[in-house]
């Protein structure tokens, strides 16, 4: 479904991602692990079209994503969240999610959405659809309680969750999550893994990166470990974690998992 075909990304002299190749098939949760600075986020940005790959290409359902802008990639159904959450802080939680409903409306109504500008039965119908969706997403991400608060006033965990919620509002077929777990408290982590589990239940493909296996160990079908920009291991989390290279890469940090 998503093919990473020998992607390399250079920033001047520095090789951030070095000839990484793997594929993600439908309905699976892939965890990409690696210590800080191992090129995870860069790889994710390449996939999301934030910047182009220096070599190799990313294919989505056989179509090359190279050269597409972020919004175009997102329109294809591959949506990413930000490592440290980026939100519309001046808007309420609900508004944030509603704004994110942009793509949904587009895919559902196409050109007809112009008709929703003028007040009409059509408009109310469309609005109801979106509202329903917003409610569903808030419910799923357990944010209903704060839906009326300003996004800026949320806790760090809440912000991250809202980031996920907004991504979900785009009805993506694949979700790229950039360190969703980092900096979360214990019950926030539980909340998150609960959400991810439910998403998997709904058959969404997930690609999650984290600097350590942590809570994902239980969740991911497959784990890929990056180190200094290149892939050093691939397999089920447990397999991967037992590999010598990985343990070295983490300098004994691995037993935390």
């Amino acid at each position, binding site marked *: 479904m998503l093919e990473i075909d020998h992607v390399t990304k250079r920033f001047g002299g520095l090789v951030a991602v070095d000839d990484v190749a793997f594929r993600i098939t439908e309905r699976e949760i892939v965890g990409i692990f690696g210590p800080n600075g191992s090129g995870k986020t860069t790889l994710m940005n390449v996939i*999301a079209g934030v910047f182009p790959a220096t070599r190799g290409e990313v294919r989505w359902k056989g179509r090359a994503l190279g050269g597409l*802008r*972020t*919004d*175009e990639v*997102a*329109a294809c159904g591959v*949506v*990413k*969240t*930000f490592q440290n959450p*980026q*939100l*519309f*802080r*001046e*808007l309420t939680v609900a508004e944030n999610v*509603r*704004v*994110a*409903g*942009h*793509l949904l*409306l*587009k895919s559902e109504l196409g050109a007809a*959405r112009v008709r*929703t*500008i*003028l*007040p009409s039965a059509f408009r109310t119908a469309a609005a109801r659809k979106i509202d329903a969706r917003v409610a569903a997403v808030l419910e799923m991400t357990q944010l209903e309680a704060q839906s009326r608060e300003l996004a800026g006033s949320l806790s760090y965990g809440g912000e991250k969750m809202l980031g996920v919620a*907004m*991504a979900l*509002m*785009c009805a993506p077929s694949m979700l790229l999550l950039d360190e969703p777990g980092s900096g979360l408290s214990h019950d926030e982590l539980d909340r998150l893994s609960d959400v991810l589990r439910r998403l998997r239940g709904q058959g969404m493909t997930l690609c999650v990166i984290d600097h350590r296996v942590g809570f994902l160990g239980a969740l991911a079908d497959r784990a890929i470990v990056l180190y200094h920009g290149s892939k050093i291991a691939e397999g089920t989390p447990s397999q991967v974690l037992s590999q010598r290279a990985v343990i070295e890469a983490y300098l004994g940090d691995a037993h935390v998992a």
Partner: protein
Amino acid sequence: MRVLLLVLCGAVALVPALTANNVVLSVLTFTFILGILAVSFNLIYGITGQLTLFHAAAFGVGAYATHLSMAHWSISFWLGTAFALGCVAVVSLLLGIVCFRFRLKEFYFAVVTLAFAEMIRLGVMNWHSLTNGSLGINFSLKPSVWLPGAGALVIEGPVRWYYFSLACVVVVVLAYQLVVNSWIGNAFKAIRLNEDVAASLGLNAFRYKLLSFVLGSMGASFAGGLYSHYMGFVDPHLLDINQSLAILSMALIGGTGSVAAPVVGALVVTALPHLIDLNAEWRLLIYGLILIFTILLMPQGIVGSLRRLRKHA
């Protein structure tokens, strides 16, 4: 709140009945017309976050295009307006494509739009055969509207102009309100608040910035047509840089937070010179102080601040 709103509407609607004073009427008529200008500017700046200094040019080009098309092809005001809207739409589309393709932001966008505005102004100043250059053009053509019962009604005299301009500003504000309340408005806000997130959510920032810029400029064009026909006169002063700055201060004084607020700013800027009955230098001084204190003491503008008070109260 609702009550106040109704009272206000009543008051505004009844002004001609309350006072036959043509000075008040013309100040308010100018307020409504310039209100359209400020509101349309605010769509681009306040809602979408793009500081355009092209607005005076759009205003002036609209004024000239409306009149010239009416004069040369002897068409009605409304056809002329349509033509002007077309012209300004095309011009702003091209300019917008250039600016946004090259990702010009904030001050850079402001200066480049200013540069184009200045070039257009110089063009108008020197294309004597078409615009009569700095002499401007005087004319007595007037718009006319068809009213059920009254039939075709020529807009002339203080009272008719008052209601006409009032109707226009209401229509424009409502139109923009519809857009801003729709998914398009959400896109505009998203771009202003955080362009990166907007993009990551699959929102084509380029397209929506362009849309906002064109829609706003068209509003300015309409205002230009009205303004010139109220004065019976067009000249290159309409495209002046200071005009753009005046528009900006209208928006800021009124408040950039909502669609309609700039109309209040337009009222302040239009009425102030005639309220402060002082000699020239003092008035200039006071105008400056008012600008400074509006910004330092109530950055959300009059409307924004009042909203705030109500929230806290």
